[in-house]
């Protein structure tokens, strides 16, 4: 079991928690040491996995999942701890590792209770990594919920503003989503094999069996898609996102917007569409409408907000809507775009939240009406903010451009009127994005200094620089070398496209 590299993505965070358990609450140095060592180890492991994966693919290994392993867990129900990755999960693991690293560095001076903070943070990352390595629905669901619950304490204890309300709202809404999800998964399980066959939770086996009755598929598709869609901030289930993100502490916003919201998109892709292709064909239009609304509505809402975090949270609703929108187009190009958008949005939104946290730590306000001309005072943070903004509005050379370009390219392939109209509407969000990004940049960074007290503020410290540079390098990396991403994920869509075409 321990010979499998994927298992270590879960074991390292557990070691992290054990290590933190041994530290004393006041001993900041030891806590930092544990966190840095483990998050660097995770990052190294993710990079190594990525290289190894590409090497195996290069050698012509075309199986759906690599590094697979399966260990019996709850034998009476045939529940396994089953792991395996394809190109998409490898990239998601890499993204998570980068953001966990950046988040750790960004919360260098967390206060109060640093030990407890990192303990829950580590539990959150266990859930995230576990989710991406699982190919067994039960373990996937378990890790999914593991990732949700620490949010309550992380926001409630270390957050700002209306934190109690937001933490409760976020937790209950996400858990509500997972209630629907659980019902969907149970339905899939009980229909996972033809009459008399061995029922299974394993995603690959279920898709090979393809035995789910069409009459059940529609119901189960709605349950699973809505279940994951809540975490993907799909309209009208997105309302947890602005409040939750606005009140969360920096590292948690980063991890939540950067990685956790991707759990939703990934889950829709891996379970709802892959396992229930017939229903996906039939019912995609409902969710295209909903996600289309998310995209446009999120962008417009961001235009009128004055709190930096709210702006970014609504922009996340818009961008994550685009991920789900692209997945629902059910073709390879759009799905490739969706994966790129997940990576791009994950990195850039993490960068945004890190910067907002740093600015807020200095000015003690997030209201753009009370700030101005920060570029003169803290040029480093200002430039970083601009880079994040440009990535968000899709400047060529940065990650956002590649992702959105691919999505709309793929989405336009469907030639019927319904799809065309919705793609065009969604495209309009690009313009709106430019409006709200430039508005913030103009008010916040450029122009005269609004508050003379701000002149005494300092620029970024070394750990803030390290955290932001890591993310910027990745954003530029995707923007300049998108082919690398493409190569990694190109084999991953064949099974899903085959399933969808088989269903027609």
């Amino acid at each position, binding site marked *: 079991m321990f010979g499998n590299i994927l298992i270590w993505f879960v074991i390292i965070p557990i070691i992290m928690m054990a290590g933190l358990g041994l530290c004393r609450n006041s001993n900041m140095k030891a806590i930092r040491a544990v966190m840095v060592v483990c998050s660097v180890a995770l990052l190294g492991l993710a990079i190594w996995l990525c290289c190894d994966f590409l090497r195996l693919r290069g050698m012509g290994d075309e199986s759906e999942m690599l590094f697979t392993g399966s260990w019996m*867990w*709850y*034998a*009476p*129900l*045939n529940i396994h701890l089953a792991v395996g990755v394809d190109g998409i999960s490898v990239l998601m693991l890499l993204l998570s590792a980068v953001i966990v690293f950046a988040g750790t560095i960004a919360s260098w001076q967390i206060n109060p*209770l640093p030990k*407890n903070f990192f303990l829950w943070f580590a539990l959150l990352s266990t859930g995230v990594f576990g989710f991406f390595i699982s190919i067994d629905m*039960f373990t996937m*669901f*378990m*890790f999914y*919920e*593991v990732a949700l*619950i620490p949010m*309550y*304490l992380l926001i*409630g*204890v270390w957050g700002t503003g209306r*934190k*109690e309300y937001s*933490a*409760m709202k976020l*937790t*209950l809404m996400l*858990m*509500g989503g997972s*209630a*629907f999800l*659980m*019902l969907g998964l*149970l*339905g899939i*399980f*009980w229909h996972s094999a033809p009459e*008399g066959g*061995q*029922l299974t939770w394993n995603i690959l086996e279920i898709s090979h069996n393809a035995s789910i009755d069409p009459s059940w598929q529609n119901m189960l598709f709605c349950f699973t898609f809505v279940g994951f869609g809540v975490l993907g901030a799909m309209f009208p289930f997105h309302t947890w996102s602005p409040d939750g993100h606005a009140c969360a502490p920096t590292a948690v916003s980063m991890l939540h917007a950067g990685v956790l919201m991707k759990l939703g998109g990934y889950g829709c892709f891996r379970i709802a569409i892959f396992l229930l292709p017939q229903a996906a064909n039939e019912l995609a239009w409902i969710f295209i409408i909903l996600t289309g609304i998310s995209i446009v509505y999120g962008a417009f809402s961001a235009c009128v907000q004055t709190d930096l975090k709210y702006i970014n949270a609504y922009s996340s609703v818009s961008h994550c809507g685009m991920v789900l929108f692209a997945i629902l187009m059910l073709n390879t190009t759009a799905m490739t775009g969706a994966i790129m958008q997940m990576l791009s949005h994950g990195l850039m939104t993490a960068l945004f939240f890190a910067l907002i946290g740093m600015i807020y730590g200095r000015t003690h306000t997030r209201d753009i009406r009370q700030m101005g001309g920060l570029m003169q005072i803290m040029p480093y943070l200002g430039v970083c903010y601009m880079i994040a903004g440009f990535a968000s509005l899709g400047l060529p050379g940065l990650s956002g451009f590649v992702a959105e370009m691919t999505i709309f390219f793929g989405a336009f392939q469907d030639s019927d009127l319904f799809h065309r109209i919705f793609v065009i509407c969604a495209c309009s969000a690009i313009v709106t994005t430019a409006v709200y990004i430039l508005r913030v940049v103009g008010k916040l960074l450029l122009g005269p200094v609004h508050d003379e007290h701000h002149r005494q503020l300092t620029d970024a410290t070394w750990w803030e620089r390290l955290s932001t540079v890591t993310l910027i390098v990745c954003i530029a990396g995707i923007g300049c070398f998108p082919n690398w991403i493409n190569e990694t994920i190109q084999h991953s869509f064949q099974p899903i496209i085959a399933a969808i075409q088989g269903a027609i």
Partner: protein
Amino acid sequence: MDYSQFGAMLPELIVLGIFLIVFLFDTFSGEGAKKALPSLTTILFALGTVAIWIVPASAEPVFGGMYVNTPACNAIKAILNVGVFIVFLQSVKWVDSESMKIRRGEFYELLLVTLFGMYLMVSARHFLLFIIGLESASLPLAALVAFNKKEYESHEAAIKYIMTAVFSSAILLCGLSFVYAFSGGSLYFSDIAVALSIGETSGLLLVAIAFVLAGLGFKLSLVPFHLWTADVYEGAPTSITSYLSVVSKGAAAFAFFIIFTQCFGAVYSDAWEWMLYAVIIATITVGNLFAMRQKNMKRFMAFSSISQAGYLMLGAVADSSLGLGSMMFYIFVYIVSNLGAFAVIQTIEYQTGKLNMDDYNGLHKTNPWLSFAMTLAMFSLAGIPPFAGFFSKFLIFTSVTGTGSMALYMLVLIALINTIISLYYYLLVVKAIWISGDAPKIESFRSDGASRAALWISVAGIVFFGLVPYIYQYCIDSVMASQDSILSAILPLFVG
């Protein structure tokens, strides 16, 4: 009479033996030696539990089929024993207190007698023996509830408890007299099942089954038979409350399953399927809605335990081996989670006398370990992974949906939506501990060794027995080895 038949009753004999030792020791030892009573009982009980756990059950019906100790019955007894053991550990400090000193022997004796009664409820296959078990489980409990004899609430609770217990027994007996008529003059479970499978379903049978359901519903505090619960839980000494909430409930749930599947299994879809649905939905929902408003921790736990009983009953809906196994696992997990919470409540009550949720504000600053344990217990009760409560809930939902009817999916959906409501109020406790309040109201203190041991056992159970499938496997294996459930539609699922 063949006295070797008593050999089949090993768990009962063990409990009876411990009872006699405690009784004789309490009667004949001097004042000084009596100090050893709590530790003596606890150690003996631990040994007895181990014996029940490892000695295989005989599974032979004895006394003309009145009594049988199948592996499943044996397993549930072992599981209940774990709960009682933790309760014993929790109450060591309490029974050593000044007002309790002269009565500590009685505490253990009465408790063991009720446990003996529950064993009979679990193993009875004849209603006469079942009633004996039920009564000996109920009446001494009333005395235990009144144990804080100088407190008004304790008396009130005892009166309420004894009234409802007697009332529910009367209803149950009334139902049984109807059943007696249907079965043509036999109270054996097997005879009743045969008689019902050939007879017609009539209105009178529905009444009979409804009466039996109501009688057991009082024990399980299912809605609408739950009205006594909150007051009794609040008034009883906390050790007794924790015993009532887990052990008594677990035994009743198992007995419920046995009686309804073995006696009334033949008329399941005609007569009591919809009754059970209605009762479950009402129990879960009402328990949750009332729990949200509670400020007193004991009342809070009372309503939480009502809704947990509803989830427990989901195992009976499935009417299958898988359902029974999941229900037993749920009982185990519920025992460790609930007792974990009660261990914290009780420690704080004895140290400071504080029982309100507001008093827990900022607890993490003064008592970080208690806060941590309470948080884990709340997460486990709410069904959050990786704690055991998630697994037990998931497994019981899986067993319910297995039969594949749409009605059951809707039932599970309602139950799932209710888990969100329950998450809300469990998080209120977590919020009080970690988020609310700047000035902690509870001083920093160090609790006694025994209750800390109880807490450690509960926390270990919460953390490990979800991730390690040992207990679940044990439950399923023991159910598979006995013929307690009549339907086995889901059997092909079992692998290897």
